[in-house]
């Protein structure tokens, strides 16, 4: 009796003290299908997957694989039975080679000695089969994120995995790399694998998935054929209410030029001769492929990297911005791409995270005024609608969207003229994204200027006044608001 069901998770429940994280969630994965699992952050997607891989013990429910009940104790055990996960945050030994990572935990040995030759040969065969062109001897650290991810996928395939869970696999890939990923996913599907695909990106879900399951508040609220769904329908299911618009109305009006950049060139980065003007109250988008120098523009402007420029003029005054301290003094602010790594101070309170860039203003003689810091933090929490039990809560306890609001708050307190935003909505769910867009638009409306880097073109087109497209470290051109994604892509490929 083969009904094509590969993996069946039925009525899974899991409670943590005070929270019912999963409430009778179910998921049916069929052989040869790509199944999207969607939902806002906190809807229970990752908890469900953690129950599958035995990282959490579920309170109720049943999991069957090929009709037989299973309960994995660890991801290793799951892997051995053909259930693999490609993590959002890659877990790899970066100082070791590709082959070492691939076969970690199961090196082929002969008489206790690792058989290097077999390892290299097997790696080569596996890569050839998947169309991956990475040198097995390369050190992981030297590879791009997408290449590392390919290694992770190859690893899952090499275990003969039948069920592969992808957790936000394209969040750090360029379009081209994503295409390669989709090819491999389709290949796996055609080979009879079942793919669970977790992503926030509607466009790609609708492109490559056959079935979509949407989660909300720990329940699986709908499972539908992808053919019958639209982006709006999915958002409606996820949010549980009509979200009329993905982007707030444009209310900012760019005025006179405040920042003039001429011939910005990175000393150690690929930036070459980047020139542009930024107007007061303007939101300037920066688009381009991964490695085109998007992030590097912000880093150079903020003094994080060594650079040279023919001219760097802020409000008619020539500036240098050699270090972040100088940049901050000149009214610059940077919201970094890797929130957890370079944005938040995880174990410290929201108050400390909020005031950290502005401490000078709280000095009363030798002491910091606790009262003033508390007042400002409370004001940020209420004005940016940060959802938190208190200002003393460690910031790592908040969701990604709320952490991001705190970081925006941190910079707002410095009253910046120029805000540099690097992927400000990465890893943030749909509802919170809208709020972040609203904050950005409001800032521009107040006359602050924004430079926003993003790999998601719809969002750039949604909120920017103009988009500067980079290609190979150079400016390939500027796109206006009414440009199409295709036009931007063409520009992005100009100097590749």
């Amino acid at each position, binding site marked *: 009796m083969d009904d094509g069901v590969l993996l069946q998770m039925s009525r899974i429940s899991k409670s943590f003290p005070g929270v019912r994280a999963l409430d009778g969630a179910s998921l049916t994965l069929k052989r040869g299908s790509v199944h999207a699992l969607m939902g806002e952050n906190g809807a229970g997607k990752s908890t469900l997957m953690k129950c599958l891989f035995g990282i959490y013990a579920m309170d109720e429910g049943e999991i069957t694989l090929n009709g037989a009940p299973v309960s994995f104790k660890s991801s290793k055990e799951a892997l051995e039975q053909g259930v693999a996960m490609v993590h959002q945050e890659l*877990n790899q*030994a970066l*100082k070791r080679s590709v082959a070492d990572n691939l076969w970690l935990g199961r090196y082929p040995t002969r008489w206790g*000695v690792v058989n290097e030759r077999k390892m290299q040969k097997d790696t080569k065969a596996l890569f050839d089969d998947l169309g991956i062109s990475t040198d097995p001897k390369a050190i992981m650290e030297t590879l791009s994120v997408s290449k590392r991810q390919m290694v992770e996928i190859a690893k899952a395939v090499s275990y003969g995995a039948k069920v592969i869970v992808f957790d936000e696999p394209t969040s750090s890939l360029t379009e081209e790399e994503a295409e390669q990923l989709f090819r491999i996913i389709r290949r796996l599907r055609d080979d009879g694998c079942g793919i669970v695909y977790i992503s926030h990106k509607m466009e790609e879900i609708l492109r490559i998935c056959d079935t979509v399951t949407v989660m909300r508040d720990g329940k699986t609220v709908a499972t539908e054929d992808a053919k019958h769904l639209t982006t709006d329908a999915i958002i409606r299911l996820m949010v549980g209410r009509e979200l009329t618009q993905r982007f707030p109305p444009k209310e900012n009006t760019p005025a006179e030029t405040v920042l003039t950049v001429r011939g910005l060139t990175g000393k150690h980065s690929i930036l070459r001769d980047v020139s542009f003007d930024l107007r007061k109250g303007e939101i300037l988008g920066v688009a381009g492929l991964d490695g085109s120098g998007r992030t590097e523009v912000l880093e150079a402007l903020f003094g994080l990297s060594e650079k040279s420029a023919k001219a760097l003029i802020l409000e008619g005054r020539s500036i240098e911005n050699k270090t972040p301290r100088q940049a901050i003094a000149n009214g610059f602010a940077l919201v970094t791409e890797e929130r957890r790594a370079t944005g938040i101070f995880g174990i410290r309170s929201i108050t400390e995270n909020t005031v950290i860039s502005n401490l000078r203003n709280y000095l009363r003689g030798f002491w910091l005024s606790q009262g003033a810091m508390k007042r400002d933090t409370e004001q940020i929490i209420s004005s940016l609608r940060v959802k938190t039990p208190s200002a003393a809560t460690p910031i790592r306890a908040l969701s990604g969207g709320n952490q991001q609001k705190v970081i925006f708050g941190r910079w707002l307190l410095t009253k910046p003229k120029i805000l540099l935003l690097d992927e400000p909505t990465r890893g943030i769910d749909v509802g919170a994204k809208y709020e972040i867009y609203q904050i950005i638009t409001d800032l521009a409306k107040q006359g602050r200027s924004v430079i926003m880097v993003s790999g998601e073109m719809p969002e750039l087109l949604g909120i920017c006044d103009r988009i500067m497209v980079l290609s190979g470290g150079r400016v390939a051109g500027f796109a206006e608001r009414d440009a199409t994604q295709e036009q931007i892509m063409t520009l992005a490929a100009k100097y590749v």
Partner: protein
Amino acid sequence: MKQKNKGALRERRREFFINNSLYLFLIAAIVAIVIYDPRFLSVPSLVNILSLSAANLPLALGIAGAIILSGTDLSAGRAVGLIACVSASLLQTSGYPNKMFPALQTLPLWAVILLALAMGGLIGLINGFCVAKFRLHPFIVTLATQLIIFGLLLMYLMIGSNNGQSISGLDASYTEFITGSVLRIGSTAIPNYVFYSVGITLLMWFVWNKTTFGKNMFAVGSNPEAARVSGVNVTGVTVGVFTLAGILYGVTGFIEAARIGSNSAATGLNYELDAIAACVIGGVSFVGGIGKIRGVILGVVLLRIIFVGLTFLSIDSNLQYVIKGLIILVACAIDMRKYLVRK
């Protein structure tokens, strides 16, 4: 265009000088020492450097493992001290007036070797267990265990009528086994322990590079979480690395006792610091997951050349500490440059 090339060339040359400054410094130092005293490059002097390096090498290889796990081991020196004193006390000549255990017959060497290795292994096992199971930083664990070991050593030296005196009068079979010689260069004998050290180094090269355990050690040092989700027994590897380190301290202790002949509570003092310095100079990085056997060898030998060289130059021994410290700082700074992403 030509101007640009020239600039790039100058930049490359600068990089070369900075990255290899240690070797350049060493060459300069050797030249200076030889000019001052040509005997520095004589056979006895070179054999001296070689054998002093060989005596320290097993210990350094053990500590290198702990550093590759992005840890450290402060208990090494005291472990060597305890094992040296125990080995020495069990292998004193019968009839020696100050014998610690007067009734004790001369034990067979192999029995004491096994005991030394077992003691080292046990110390390492305890270190590794605390690090892996209680998730304590190795710095804390070994800071504590080195105190405990030192206490035990002091108590051991009070046994019987010994009353804390140093232990000497070692049996000829023991000293002959360690410091005797089967090979001479001219009239200079190469002590046997040099060969034991070479053997152990080869064995360790094999363990590091060719075995699953070795590869797992590097993987755990590079990213313990990745190793865990790949099914590597991280606890096992950690305990294993520290235990292996302990066994190597056992080797060092057994050799050291016979090499210096008279063992006291000061035996082994600060050995771990020299070994850690040697590892770092040799490119075993505190970042974790990085290190090569040849780096450790190079580090140990380099440091030894510097120490011996300073003595040759008859530099004040107090000043020698200052110079050693500076060398370690510079070496680490150069090492770190390689891992900084240039921006």
